[in-house]
């Protein structure tokens, strides 16, 4: 029997009427686009004043390979911003020539373990005039920021003209993408990078995002609740521990929402998110600036919903999700691809996904009107409902003492595990239908074979050998001196900001593994999280 309920388990009625939104007060609960509580969006003219950034995630093989892909995406119409994901090696902040790193360098993303890699990634690509987004995990946050600062200086670019997002919150590591660096270190470095961009007015955002949580199996209401819990905790830490003004802190976060195929529910979630953030900013944090009530929201169409079976069907799923992303007024959209359940995007799949965005943007008319579903009995009822459910979950997290406390008790992890298992069960028993997976299944021999892009075996080793050789050509006394300073600074306590020392080390071409290694040593940890290599420098 097919389940007719929202993804967070509330029954859906066959029809919605004015009675379902009897409590709705237009001014109080919705407001005009551009007016508090911003349920309808931040811009009175919507996409007429600025079209969303249409982008695709890149990153596979060497930095030069990724550079060619980025250039190709520009040809395909990706102009507003670029988005690069790191491989598991850089995400872990070990080096590609580490015994474990060399086995999978460049396999699942960009092997950005040094400034040299960033220079190669960005060759002939401007740092200005488009948003620079580097994703992957929390640990490399300070390094990605240092790369941007260092390359801007080298190129003579005005740092204030560069914008994008290279910071990522430490919570993501709990949401199905585990990392090797300890949470307290990730949190400290995240706060360092955040404080650095805020104090220096660098227009770099921090990903404080619910996407990983939802992609790992969480539902919409949980994703919304956790987003609020993460924002509240990190903003509070920046205000109380780093002495920053909330109105400055509010320029930092951006949310990447995962948009799945439950069209109306996804739209309701984002509308509720805008309202919840606006109220948190104004009522809890006492925001003085109106702008602080705006949360930058980008959308990622859901990779999890992309099926392995009958991959061409994913083009349709992606289109429906992109339309939802456009209707909610996302600032940027990056799409999952038809081959998402097989490999990293092939050029064909990438083009399909970008074209999907172009078609939604220019052919459907969805970009002509702001928040076109406002006033729909169904969508307004769903918006209220997901918000109510999210507040209930948030209240439970707050009772425990907030997000970090809830994670310490394993409550959030259990919530995610339970929900992911429930979703699996729902599909396994046929309560939820997925075409080609548990409904209208096609014999495998009739399946259309899609092109699959992969890294040829041996390329990882090539990336590792290049780093090994290149490391010897650096100004080694300078690298050692910069790492020694970083090591000293890292011993000065959690509130001592390491960004200046990290930037100096990056400029001397110290690598991710070296920089993290000496910070770890200063904190009483082993140089190498895997205990396989020793620090190659004598620290003064």
């Amino acid at each position, binding site marked *: 029997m097919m389940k007719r309920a929202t993804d967070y388990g509330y029954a859906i009625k066959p029809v919605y009427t004015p009675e379902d939104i009897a409590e709705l007060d237009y001014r109080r609960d919705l407001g005009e686009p551009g007016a508090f509580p911003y349920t309808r969006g931040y811009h009175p003219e919507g996409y007429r004043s600025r079209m969303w950034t249409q982008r695709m995630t890149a990153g596979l093989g060497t930095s030069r390979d990724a550079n060619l892909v980025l250039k190709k995406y520009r040809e395909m119409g990706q102009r507003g911003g670029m988005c690069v994901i790191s491989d598991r090696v850089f995400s872990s902040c070990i080096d590609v020539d580490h015994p*474990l790193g060399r086995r999978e360098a460049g396999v699942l993303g960009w092997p950005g373990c040094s400034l040299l890699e960033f220079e190669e990634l960005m060759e002939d690509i401007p740092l200005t005039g488009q948003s620079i987004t580097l994703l992957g995990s929390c640990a490399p946050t300070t390094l990605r920021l240092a790369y941007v600062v260092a390359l801007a200086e080298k190129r003579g670019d005005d740092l204030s003209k560069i914008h994008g997002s290279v910071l990522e919150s430490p919570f993501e590591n709990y949401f199905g993408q585990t990392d090797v660096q300890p949470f307290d270190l990730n949190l400290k470095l995240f706060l360092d990078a955040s404080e650095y961009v805020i104090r220096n007015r660098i227009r770099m955002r921090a990903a404080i995002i619910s996407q990983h949580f939802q992609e*790992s199996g969480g539902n919409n209401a949980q994703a919304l609740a956790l987003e609020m819990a993460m924002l509240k905790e990190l903003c509070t830490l920046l205000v109380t521990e780093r002495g920053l003004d909330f109105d400055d802190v509010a320029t930092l976060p951006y949310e990447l929402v995962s948009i799945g195929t439950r069209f109306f529910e996804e739209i309701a979630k984002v509308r509720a998110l805008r309202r919840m953030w606006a109220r948190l900013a104004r009522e809890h944090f006492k925001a003085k600036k109106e702008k602080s009530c705006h949360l930058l929201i980008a959308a990622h169409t859901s990779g999890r919903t992309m099926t*392995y*079976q009958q991959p061409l069907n994913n083009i349709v799923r992606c289109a429906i999700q992109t339309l939802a992303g456009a209707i909610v007024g996302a600032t940027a959209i990056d799409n999952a691809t038809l081959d998402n359940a097989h490999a990293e995007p092939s050029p064909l799949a990438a083009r399909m996904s970008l074209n999907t965005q172009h078609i939604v943007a220019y052919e459907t008319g969805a970009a002509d009107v702001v928040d076109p579903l406002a006033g729909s009995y169904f969508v307004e009822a769903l918006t209220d409902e997901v918000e109510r459910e999210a507040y209930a979950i948030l209240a439970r997290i707050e009772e425990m003492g907030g997000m970090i406390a809830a994670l310490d008790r394993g409550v959030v992890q259990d919530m995610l595990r339970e929900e*992911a298992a429930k979703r699996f069960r729902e599909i396994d028993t046929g309560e939820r239908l997925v075409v080609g*997976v*548990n409904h209208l299944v096609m014999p495998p021999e009739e399946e259309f074979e899609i092109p*699959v892009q*992969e890294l040829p*075996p041996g390329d990882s080793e090539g990336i590792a050998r290049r780093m090994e050789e290149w490391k010897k050509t650096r100004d080694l006394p300078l690298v050692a001196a910069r790492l020694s300073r970083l090591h000293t600074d890292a011993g000065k306590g959690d509130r001592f900001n390491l960004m200046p020392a990290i930037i100096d080390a990056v400029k001397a071409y110290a690598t991710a593994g070296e920089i993290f290694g000496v910070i770890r040593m200063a904190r009483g940890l082993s140089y190498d999280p895997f205990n396989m290599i020793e620090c190659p420098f004598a620290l003064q």
Partner: protein
Amino acid sequence: MSAGQGKKVIVSMIGLDGHTTGGEIVARILRDAGIEVVYLGCNQTPEMIVRAAIQEDVDLIGISSHASNYGQIVSLVELLKRNGAEDVPVVCGGNVPKHQARLLIEKGVAAVFPPGSGADSIIRFVLGNARGATAGLCVNGEGIA
């Protein structure tokens, strides 16, 4: 004998793969079926998995793969052989492209379960192919890849 027929298996990620959801779901499915599961989690090298397999005396190894690092799964199979544990089958699950799945089978992986595989097919395969499985329960080696 319990529903799990006294079988004991490892569920693990391999290499730097940090995507845990699939592995955790499979571990739960197998436990619910009465099979004893040793869940190793992330950051496990082939060497560590083989060591755990021998110490824990498991009957099958399940690798959750979301990182395209298939070479390490092949290394695991070879390492088991070198340690005289080739009777412990290695099963892989995750978003593995079809031609990779075929290569893995050629290299000695017992089965590859793609996304969307049902709980029943996974349990049946494990009970039918784990070391010392009762004859007659065997299912074809390619899973439903």
